[in-house]
């Protein structure tokens, strides 16, 4: 490590240092309103997947 590299590294903002792979953030606590939004989103995604699947099958035949 050259002195120039050492100086640059020492001045690198701590939050920009390469994190250890696998470090996880805490799971978000969901409020009742947010739980409802997440449920509706799951329902929406499920409907979308079914619709696309049906369209694909009908399209193939």
């Amino acid at each position: 490590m050259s002195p120039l590299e050492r100086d640059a590294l020492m001045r690198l903002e701590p939050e920009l240092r390469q994190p250890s792979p696998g470090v996880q953030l805490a799971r978000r606590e969901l409020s009742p309103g947010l739980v409802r939004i997440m449920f509706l989103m799951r329902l929406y995604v499920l409907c979308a997947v079914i619709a696309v699947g049906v369209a694909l099958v009908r399209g193939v035949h």
Partner: protein
Amino acid sequence: MMPCDSNELPNTLVDSTGSLWCPAPEDYLRAHDRSRVRSARARKRPIGLMLLLAGPGVLVMLGENDGPSMLSYATTGATYGIGFFLPFILLTFVLAYVVQEMTVRVAIATHRGHAELIRDRFGPVWGFFAIADLTVGNLLTLVTEFVAIRAGTSYFGIPAPVAAGGAVILVVLTLATRRYATWERTVMLLALGNLVFIPAALLAHPDTEQIARALTTWGPLPAGGLMLFMTLVLANVGATVTPWMLFFQQSAVVDKGLTVKDLAQGRIDTALGAALAALVALSTVVAVAPLFAHHVNIAALNNGADFATALRPYLGAPVATLFALGMVEAGIVAAMTISTSSAYAVGEVLRTNHSLNSEFAHARWFFIAAAVSVGVAAAVTLVPGAPLLAIAIMVNVISTFLMLPALILLLLLANDREIMGTLANTLRQNVVAGSATVAIGAIGAVYGGILVARQLGVNL
């Protein structure tokens, strides 16, 4: 931070908090990049600073001016000429800026990629949804990019295998630089090729008064069938905001190493990208408008080469050549950015290294994901009888359907004060971003619904 072991002691540093730190190879590169940023800031060189910090915003916006998007703009110009769609397309880029600016703030506040944050904050189900949505959507979109590359190069008589193989090699070579800054500058240089649509528009000698009138009055309104009009409205929205853009810009801002001090430049970068991409989109509509004026039947125009050939009798060989070149560039740059967004997401979800600064041995899955996705997409376009039209339709369906949950997740993250701190959305930002989400989500869902209904044979 990387943990230290005894073998690394010669390269160990004691940081300002007194703890041991063993810099990873990526840290050396990022430290070098940040030294240049600090120096430009200290010397009060705003343009130099901007040039150093610009990248993710310009790339994501010009990357989204991809093969299918350019075809949408060309079809719009050939169908309706200069009128309502010029200001409408401008508005879609304002929406794109509002959405993408949030990804910059989330990235700067958390220093985490989009897929990683969704998994960590909302759990594995949404993490799986994010990665499935992105990888499937991206793979199908990549197929359409290679279709655009094939179509554009066919105008110059280049055989399909040579075009597809050449594009794959180019994408892999840019990844092989193993340096975020080099990759970014290379792709930005190529992305500037998107601007060829501007001289194409100028060579079409458009009526500037008509353009000014269209931009100020939103007219003339398109005549003809409502279904065609709605489809083009929705296609133009889909051409500007798609899920991969959220993942790409957030991860690229993290990989580039932007901090709170760089937020203003991150915003300018995004606005600059939106402005350039909007200019190109409008130029494409203007360049193709003569086909509308000459009542050319556009039903037979399916790809970039068809449009180039159709333009030739009216605007000459130079415009046709620029158009074909622009389609090739649009496909190649999108292949680079979209495959990188897949690679970031795969690395984030697998919790492995996912930086363009990493060496291959340290980020194997990251590089494999990018290379395999472009390789598979290129191979699919070469399979005789591959259902390319069905794939193009499915790309639109999947990205428009899934844009709504993707935007809601982004809004939730941008409002999450635990991780965003002072960078969380303000009330005004929520009103603007919320309206944009409702508009984009509703339009996307309607578009997806129309396409699915058509597939089911429902006559709308």
